[in-house]
């Protein structure tokens, strides 16, 4: 039987495939896709922990930062969330996200979030490495 956790796990992995398909021309979308991978990954953890699934970013953020169990995830999630907002809502030159930083957020921050989610939730999930082609990877 499909569960809430299964549904978000499927979205997480689907977004991950999209992230790895993105060209280096689109650092703003690399950050955004990485953020939405992280969002669905933490939702998998909430579901396995039987935490009510928050319907807004603000509620999700409050749970992550105020719960000791999730505090380390928040340390990697917060910069990803912040940069995805900048990437989506701010225009160049101010809102420009460098390719190097976009790759760094995906390879380090998303990777750390995913590692924590797999460990804390106990799900059986093997994740292929996040390697990007082209420059800056």
């Amino acid at each position, binding site marked *: 039987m499909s569960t809430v956790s299964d549904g978000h796990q499927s979205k997480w992995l689907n977004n991950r495939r999209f992230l790895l398909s993105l060209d280096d021309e689109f650092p703003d979308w690399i950050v955004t896709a990485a953020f939405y991978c992280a969002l669905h990954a933490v939702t998998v953890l909430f579901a396995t922990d039987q935490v009510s699934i928050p319907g807004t970013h*603000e509620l999700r953020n409050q749970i992550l930062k105020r719960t000791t169990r999730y505090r380390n995830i928040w340390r990697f999630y917060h*910069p990803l969330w*912040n940069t995805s907002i900048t990437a989506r*809502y*701010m225009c160049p030159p*101010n*809102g*420009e996200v460098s390719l190097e930083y976009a790759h760094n957020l995906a390879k380090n921050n998303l990777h750390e979030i995913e590692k924590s989610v797999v460990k804390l939730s106990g799900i059986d999930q093997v994740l292929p490495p996040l390697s990007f082609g082209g420059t800056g990877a």
Partner: protein
Amino acid sequence: MSCAEPTQNTIRIDAADDQGQVVLTPEDQDRFVLSCRDTVRCASIGLGWNAISDEIDAIVRHVAEWAKSQHGVVEHCYVGIREGHLVVLVMPVGGSLRPDLASTLTELDIAIAEKFQACPCDVLQIPGSSLDDLSTIAYPQGLAHVYGKRRSPEQVAQ
């Protein structure tokens, strides 16, 4: 909730008194009448709002102190409302996104969450140089400028 010791001047209002009415006289003498139940309800809301208002003031002071410690890295700090929540907007020196500021801001965000429980608050780094650059994130006229060189009206209008 804490309460002062009653004295001979203490007026007692019981929300369970469904017949009683209270005549209230504000400073402008425009008197009005409330039921006991509504009087208790209004007082509770007022006290709750006082607690939130005090906490917002404390968050503003906390952020202003933090920003001073980031002199040379942070250009401006604003506090306002975004999507129904308190938000701290930090504009870095240079106007561009500073990856090296990210973890510092996350620690500020966590410190605020730990210290201030009544007001959910998020901290965001927003690159830019003018108040107008914040307009896609929050309503600029609703932002309180808590750190940085004050802008002239001409700069604000840009």
